[in-house]
C-alpha cells in the first residue's frame, strides 16, 4: 500500500519540458535586492534541467522570509510551521517514494528552533534536498540575532553587539550526519545551480547552505566573498582521482575529516561540495526492504488475511 506502489496516472498528453514560465507562481514578496531572488532563479534552472514530472515536485518550508519560497514555485507544496519542515518533508518522502522533495528555509528556522530536526533527519537519511538561505539574521521578524550572526553583530536583541558564540553552519551540517553537504553563494548563480543539481541527484538527505544577503537588516554581510565588492569567492576543487600531482591538493568529499577541516577555515571560507557519502542506505530503501522482507515472510497475504490472522490469535 505504500505510495510507491501507486504510480502516478499516466499523463494524457506528451509532456512539454519544464520552463521557468511554467514553474513561476506568485510574485515574490521579498524586498528588492534580497538575495533570495537569485536562489529562486537558480532553482527554476535546476528544475528545468531535472525536468521531473511537474506533479511529482514538492516544495516545502518553515517560516521566515526565505521560507516563503514555495509560494513562488508552481509545484505541489506548502508552508509549515517555524523550524519543523524537515520531519514533515521526511513524511512526504517516505509516504511518496517517487516524489522529489525540496525544503527551503532560513538560518533561524534551520539552526535555531529547527536544529534538532536537522540532526535526526540526517541520521535517518530520507531522500530529500534541503536548501538553507543563510542571511545571518532573522529577516521576517525584523532584525534579531540568529545563530549564524557573527560576534558583535548589532541587532534589536543585541543592541550592543551579539556575544553568544555563533554556530559554524558547515561544521554543524557535516556533523549532523547528512550524506551530502555543500555551500554556495546567492551572487554565484551557476555555482548555486550546480550545487542544487548535485544535491537533488544525491540519493539521500542532501543539504546546500547558500549565503543570501538580507539587504534590509544585514547589508554587506557577505561582501568578503563577493568579488565585485572586493571579496574573493573561493570554490572547492574536487578530487578527480586522475593521478596528477595537482590532484593531491584537491578535496576528497568522501573524507569526513577533510570536510571537517575545510569547515574550520576562517571566514568567509570556501564554497562547493564539502561532504558526500554514497554508501549509507536511505531510510526510504531501508523501510522498503523491511516491507519486502515482512511481506515475503507473511507470504504476501492480503491486508484482510493478515488482520484476520491477528484476530484469530486473540481468540
Amino acid at each position: 500500500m505504500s505510495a510507491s506502489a501507486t504510480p502516478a496516472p499516466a499523463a494524457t498528453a506528451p509532456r512539454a519540458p519544464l520552463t521557468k514560465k511554467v514553474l513561476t507562481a506568485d510574485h515574490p514578496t521579498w524586498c528588492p535586492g534580497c538575495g533570495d531572488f537569485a536562489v529562486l532563479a537558480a532553482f527554476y534552472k535546476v528544475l528545468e534541467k531535472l525536468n521531473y514530472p511537474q506533479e511529482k515536485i514538492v516544495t516545502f518550508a518553515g517560516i521566515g522570509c526565505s521560507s516563503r519560497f514555495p509560494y513562488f514555485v508552481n509545484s505541489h507544496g506548502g508552508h509549515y510551521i517555524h523550524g519543523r519542515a524537515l520531519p514533515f518533508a521526511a513524511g512526504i518522502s517516505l509516504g511518496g517514494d517517487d516524489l522529489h522533495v525540496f525544503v527551503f528555509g532560513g538560518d533561524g528556522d534551520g539552526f535555531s528552533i529547527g536544529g534538532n530536526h536537522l540532526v535526526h533527519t540526517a541520521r535517518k537519511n530520507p531522500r530529500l534536498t534541503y536548501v538553507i538561505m543563510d542571511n545571518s539574521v532573522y529577516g521576517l521578524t525584523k532584525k534579531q540575532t540568529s545563530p549564524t550572526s557573527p560576534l558583535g553583530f548589532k541587532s534589536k536583541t543585541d543592541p550592543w553587539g551579539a556575544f553568544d558564540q555563533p554556530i559554524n553552519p558547515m561544521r554543524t551540517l557535516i556533523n549532523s550526519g547528512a550524506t551530502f553537504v555543500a555551500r554556495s553563494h546567492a551572487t554565484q548563480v551557476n555555482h548555486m545551480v550546480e550545487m542544487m543539481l548535485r544535491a537533488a541527484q544525491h540519493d539521500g538527505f542532501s543539504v546546500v547552505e547558500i549565503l543570501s544577503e538580507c539587504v534590509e537588516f544585514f547589508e554587506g554581510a557577505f561582501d568578503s566573498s563577493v568579488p565585485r565588492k572586493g571579496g574573493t569567492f573561493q570554490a572547492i576543487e574536487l578530487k578527480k582521482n586522475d593521478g596528477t600531482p595537482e590532484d593531491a591538493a584537491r578535496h576528497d568529499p568522501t573524507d569526513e575529516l577533510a570536510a571537517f577541516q575545510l569547515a574550520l577555515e576562517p571566514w568567509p571560507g570556501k564554497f562547493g561540495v564539502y561532504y558526500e557519502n554514497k554508501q549509507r542506505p536511505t531510510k526510504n530503501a531501508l523501510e522498503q526492504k523491511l516491507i519486502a522482507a515482512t511481506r515475503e515472510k507473511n507470504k504476501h497475504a492480503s491486508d484482510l488475511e493478515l488482520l484476520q490472522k491477528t484476530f484469530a490469535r486473540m481468540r
Partner: protein
Amino acid sequence: MVSNSSSATPEGSKSAAGAPRSLNDVVIRLAGNSQDGIQAVGGFLARLAGRSAQEVMTYMTIPSTISGGPSIFQVRMGTGDILSAGDRADVLVAFYQHSYEHHRASLRPGGVLLYDSDHVQPNPDDHEVTAVGVPFTSATVEAVGGSAKEKGKNIYVLGLLARMFDLNVAKLTQLIKERFGGKNEDIVRNALLAFDAGYAYPAENLQQCLYRLEEPAPAPGARPQVTTDGNSAISYGLIAAGVRYGAAYPITPWSSIMETLRTELPKYGGIFVQCEDEIAAISTALGFSYSGNLAITGSSGPGLSLKAEALGWAVMAEIPLIVVNIQRGGPSTGLPTNIEQSDLMQAIYGSHGDAPRVVLAPATVEDCFYISLEAARIAREFSTPVIILSDQALATRIEAFDEPDLPKLMVEAKPDRTPRDAAFKPYPLDTPTRHAPPGAIMGSGKYPIVTGLEHDELGHPTANPALHAQMTAKRREKIKAVANTYAAPEVFGDQEGDLLLVGWGCTYGPIHEAVGRLQASGVKVGHLQIRHIHPLDNGLEQIFAKYQHVRVVEINDEGLYGHGQLTTLLRARFCDPKIQSITKTDGLTFRVSEIVERVAKNLGLTTIKTGARSHSVLAAPRA
C-alpha cells in the same frame, strides 16, 4: 446489559464442603510483585473467558519503581455484561505478606483468601473470609525442579484457580502451549508441570471453595470472541481503517500502540517512524497525510502538549490526521501510570486561535476498535485532524468482545492521485476541502500550496478581513457538520425519569452497572455515554429534558467553579443548571459503589443500598 433479575444476595453465607457452587461472575485479585508474572495469569484467565463466550474485564496497577515491585492484576469474568473490573474481590491471591496486608481490605466478607503459605501469615483472628494456604513457592520448585528464580509459581496458581473454579483445562493448556510455543520446549513443559501440580494440589479447605462459572453455549452463528486490551484494539482498528503510516515518540501508556504499529505496519506495506520528539512525530505524520496517506500520531498528556502548534496547523491547512491521546494522571509528568480524564479541554482548546477539530472518546476496549474506524472516516471525509481520547484504564485492561466482521469493515488505503480538473481549488469556500496530494496532476496547471497562514481559496496568503471571517466560518461549519454524520445517541436504562448519568471514556462500565443498582433501589435512571466529545451529538438537549437531574461522571477535577471538564462544556452549550458533575482525582477508575454513593448523597436519596453487587460468588449451590 446488567441483568436486573440477579439481584443482590446476602453475603458471606457458607455452603457444605465439596459441592461446586455455580455462579455468574467472579472477581479474582492477584497481588504480588510485577516480576511474578501475575499479569500472565490474569491474561490466561481473560483469554479463557473470551474463548468460553464469557465476558471479562481486567484491571491492573503498575509498580512505581523502575525495578518493579508490588503490583496487582484483577480479573472479573463471567456471564452477563461485565462492565467494570468489580468493586471488591471474591478471591484474593496473595503472594507476599505485603500483598496480603495491602489488599485484604479489598476482599469482600465471605470471600476466599488464597495465599502462599511459604511467604504469608494471615491474621488468625480474621474469620470474615475463608483462608486457604498453599505453599506456592515450594510446591512449584518441587514440581518443576529447583528453579532458583521461583519462575512458574504464577502458572502453579493458575492450576489452583482452574481447580477451584472448575475451569476448562483443555482450553487452558492449549493457551499455555500457544503462549510459550515460540520458546524452547523446556519452558512449555515446565509450565505444564507447574499447572498440573497446582491443579492437583490437595488443599484441605479448598474443598469448601469449589465453584463452577456458567459457561454459556455460544449463540448459534455468534461470532467468536476475541480478548485484548484497549491499545491493541486501537492499533488494529486503525489498520482496519486503512491507516498505514504513522510517527511517534514513546511515552507511557501510549507506547504500546506505537510498538504494535511499528511491528505490524510493514506487513501491510506501511511505515511507522520513531521520531526524536513529539513535534517531529506529528510533523512526520502530517507529511505522510499530505502525501495522501492518512496517518496517525499519538502520545500521552505531555506529548500532546508539545503537538499543540502543529495540530493548529493541521486545522488551518485542512490536512487529515489521527491523533491518539492515552490520558494519564496530570498535570505535567503527574501520575504516569494512573488513570485520569483531564485532557479533554486541552484536546478541544489546546492550540492558539480558533482551531476547531474533532474529539472522540471510546467507551470500552471493543469501542477502541470501532472508534478508530470512525476517526479515520471523519478525518478523510472532512479533511481534518481527529483526536481519539482514550485513557490509561482502557489502554491496559483486557476485555472480551465479538470478533469484528473484518471483510465488511476493512477500508482500502490508497492515496488519491487522480488528476484534478481545472476548477480544483485547495480551499474552496462553498464546497468541502479535498486535499490533492503530490503526484496528482492539476488540470488548471496551477499547483496548490497548503499553508498555516490565512489564505484565499487558492492557498495564497491574505489578511483580507472578509476572507478571514469567511474561512474561519468555513472551518467552524465543517466541524459542526461532522455531528450530522453520527449515529443518534442512545440512552441505556430508563428513557426518562429522575436522573440521567452521563459518562465518557472509561467511566462507561461503572456507570452502566450503577444504573442497575440505582434502579433496584427505585430510582428512575438512564445512562448516556458521550463518545463524540467535539462536536457533541445533536439532540442532547431533548434527552436532558427528560430527566430531573443530570450528573456527568468524570475522572478529573471539579475545577474553579465546581464542574468537571465535560460538564463545563455541556453547561456552556445548554446553559442548564441541572447539569452537574460527579468528579474525582485519585488516579483510579470509578467503583460502582462510589457512583451510587455520590448520586445518593448528591440527590439526597437515603434508601439506596450502595454496597450491593448484582452477582455474588457465594450464590446458592447448584444441583
